[in-house]
């Protein structure tokens, strides 16, 4: 169990840092980290477009590979656009290519609403917003995890119960042995730090 704790102290790495490290072609750890960060985004994005789990994973891998190649060839310049937009472009192409040979009837994405894959693709803004949502989810989850690592357990728990769990201040205070104000402060501190990290990451 010790090693698990150790892993939790994993350092906080920003996008810029990951990209910098990625320039070293021999570093497999960085490559793993890069995939760890961005694979879930592509996978969830692909799943939203009605692609089965196994293929979504393939799409994610392919996206990572295409990006890595372009990145090492120096085609990606952070100045020209955010990493998110770039990866979106790559992922979109990969998924479209994967689906290229499909008969239309197989492309029903969301069976509850009857929206087909092609409908989604037609509306570029729509899929872009899906991507953005996935991206934000990833960033928030990353940051949340980091805050949890940094903060005192009680403070974070107070934030969780009060802010996320919507429990009354009094109940949270009683449960954790904190004053009302301390609960409010906990919420404020966690959120502020979260904002900082979020800004840092992007």
């Amino acid at each position: 169990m010790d090693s698990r704790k150790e892993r939790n102290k994993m350092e906080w790495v920003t996008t810029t840092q990951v990209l910098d490290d990625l320039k070293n072609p021999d570093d497999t750890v960085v490559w793993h980290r890069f995939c760890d960060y961005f694979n879930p985004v592509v996978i969830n994005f692909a799943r939203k477009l009605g692609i089965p789990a196994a293929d979504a994973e393939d799409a994610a891998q392919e996206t990572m590979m295409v990006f890595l190649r372009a990145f090492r060839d120096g085609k990606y310049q952070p100045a020209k656009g955010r990493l998110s937009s770039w990866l979106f472009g790559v992922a979109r192409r990969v998924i479209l290519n994967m689906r290229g040979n499909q008969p239309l009837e197989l492309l029903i994405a969301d069976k509850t609403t009857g929206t087909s894959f092609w409908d989604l693709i037609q509306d570029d803004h729509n899929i872009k917003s899906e991507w953005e949502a996935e991206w934000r989810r990833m960033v928030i989850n990353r940051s949340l995890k980091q805050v949890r690592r940094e903060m005192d357990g009680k403070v974070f728990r107070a934030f969780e119960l009060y802010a996320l769990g919507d429990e009354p201040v009094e109940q949270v205070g009683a449960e954790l042995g904190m004053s009302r104000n301390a609960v409010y402060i906990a919420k404020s501190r966690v959120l502020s730090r979260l904002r900082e990290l979020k800004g840092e990451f992007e």
Partner: protein
Amino acid sequence: MDCPDFESIEKYILGHFKAESLAEFEEHLGGCPACSAKVGEGKANEELLVELRTYEKGHAEFSGEGEGKIETTDLAQSVLGEKYRVIRKVGEGSSGQVFQAVDTVLERLVAIKFLRRKSSDQACDEIWREARLMSQLNHPNIAQIFEVGEFDSQRFIVMEWVDGQPLTEAWKELQLQQRLRVYLGVLDAVAAAHRRGIIHRDIKPSNILVTSEPKAKVLDFGIAVEARSLESIERGLYRGTPGYSAPEQVTLPVKVSAATDVFALGILLYQLLTDALPFPQTNAKELFEAIRSDYPELPSALQEKIPIPLQNICLKALEKEPSKRYADAQSLGEDIQRFLRGEKVWSRPSFLTDKIQQEVFYHRQKLKVWHDNELITQKEIDRLENIYERMISPADPSIIESRKLSLSQVCLYLGGWIVVLGSFVLLYKWEMRPYWQPMPALFATALMALFGLTMWRRQESRLAVGFLSTANLLIPIAILLTLGQWGWLSYPEYEWGTESIAQALADAPEGESYLVVGNVQLFISSACWLAFSLFFLRKIRSSIFVIFSVIAFLAWLSVCYIIAGMEDWKPESVSLMYLIPGAGLFVLGVVSDRRRYVQYALPLCVVGLILIVVCLSVLALKEKMLILEWSSLEEAERVMLGFVVNGIIYLCLAGVCRRLGTRLQRTLAQALNWLGPIHILAPLRILDSNDESPISENHQVVYRILLPIASVVFVFGSVARQMKSFFFSGLGGIAASVHKITKTVFQDHFSWPVSLILTGIIWMFVSWLVPRWKASAILKRKD
């Protein structure tokens, strides 16, 4: 007013303040930069909170990264307890780790694979289920699963430790035949799993280890799904598994079946033959595209001397449509075994057939244009159309099935029939009232024909051909028996021609003849045989009936020959000089064939050849073979040895024709290859047959030994170029030798049937054995 606490600020931001205190609060904010900053921050925080509440749901799904992973040997040891002693980590990835360990109880090396549990992943449960199934399966070519376990929500699989190289590495040192043997082991393993409904899903060289024996061991049955993402991420390259994916694995929705494994096995076979991948693209998109829609390069284009049946088997396994592939590993293995047994493999990859059909279609279109422009006649069009139709028609499965009947199988049937006939004759020679004597033969013929036609209607083509060929062979005998025994059209009341076979048979030694037949009866029976052969040929279209038709035609022709009294025709004037026009015409034919005057070549060559054969035969009959002058041979011996010399000449001529290489010459060579052995073997048999002949005993012994030797040489000579002519005449020669031996040994009436039975057995044995040698000869040529 004092600075408000966090509660008040939050209330303010959320709009929970009452109207009267709001004004006071805002006044304070205006004068207190610290508080106003706090409010700004609080507003941003609340916005973030909204976002957080929206996206936090995904939290659980991905928070597990890094958890549930067994990374070190110590950790592995702690999970496994005392039963296994972990030695080292041998493989690792984001979704599973493999350790080498010792089973401390049974003291054997094992490989332990830890599976990462993913709450969202149903695949994991499926892997688990299949691993349990696999643990019940014990196969020499599958790395056995000893145990599946779970400890502290950590699942692991304990497998046999295999010390070997990946398949493609091991192949580098092996020859084609050894490679095939290893590959058949793989097929056997996968087939065993398929029978249990387990699909491997990820067959590739790194999942197949070859031990030093060499023997293949297939790893990761049904548990390989996870390894897929593992490998590609680990290497940072999209290689390995995607290259072995079937079209249905890279097309949505993914439908995996046993045929999916067959595709991967097809890729392995392709590598086995060519040492290259059928889809060599490294870019995943191009690769998937190729797998979905491109046909691979023909193996024979990459590597010389690839056995074409193997190539066709391989391409059939690589069909895009799963339904067009072999249904499972077993049927793929059966076809390869069929090749190794020397049987005909009729697997045709559909795209080759499609290609032929396409080309033929265009050509037929052209024919119409040519005809409209009066470039070709209607008759020529009809002939071409007939040929094309025959080319395309094998799409009918029943015809393909009947054509699968290889020469060796036909021989097996024939052998079977000979045994039956021998027994029948044996029976017949014992007690039977004359009137009923033909009954068994008639009954058997009718029964065989009836069975055969019924089988044909039920599309059991192989059996049908067997029965019908037996019936076909019984027909002339049954008719002769009936006519002879019942005295219809019998000799001498009804007779054509100058001399009767009956007379010759009457001269035969006592006990050899039990039947008196006349020329009319012979004529009728041979004509009926020919008619039935042609009828069966038309109905069944199997090549065996071509052979029967030819034999029936020859029989009918010889009866006509006898009736016409041609036996007496021995012109005294024929000399070596007569060879000149024959040879001249033949050479002229060859030249015009080479010079593209093809229309004259066929008649010239055929007429030339006939002249040569007639001339040489007459010369042999007149003992004019100069080379035989030196020795003190008897007259009969000279005649017969003359024919033997002729046979050798025909064989040499056949060799020359084959070397000339045009289609016509090849056909002529085939004809000569029939003439040669018959001219050699038949005289040897005749020389040894006549007990009252003036030939000295010593010479007879020599011929008696020569006949079986020559026969065996012909049978084995057929191996190299798959010549039916040598094979059949060799078998005939062996039959004659066997008959002679049984006659000498038994010296009574039973010699005939017994010899038939023995011949049949030997015949069957040889036809079982020779094709195997042929196949291994082909493989050796490749090596």
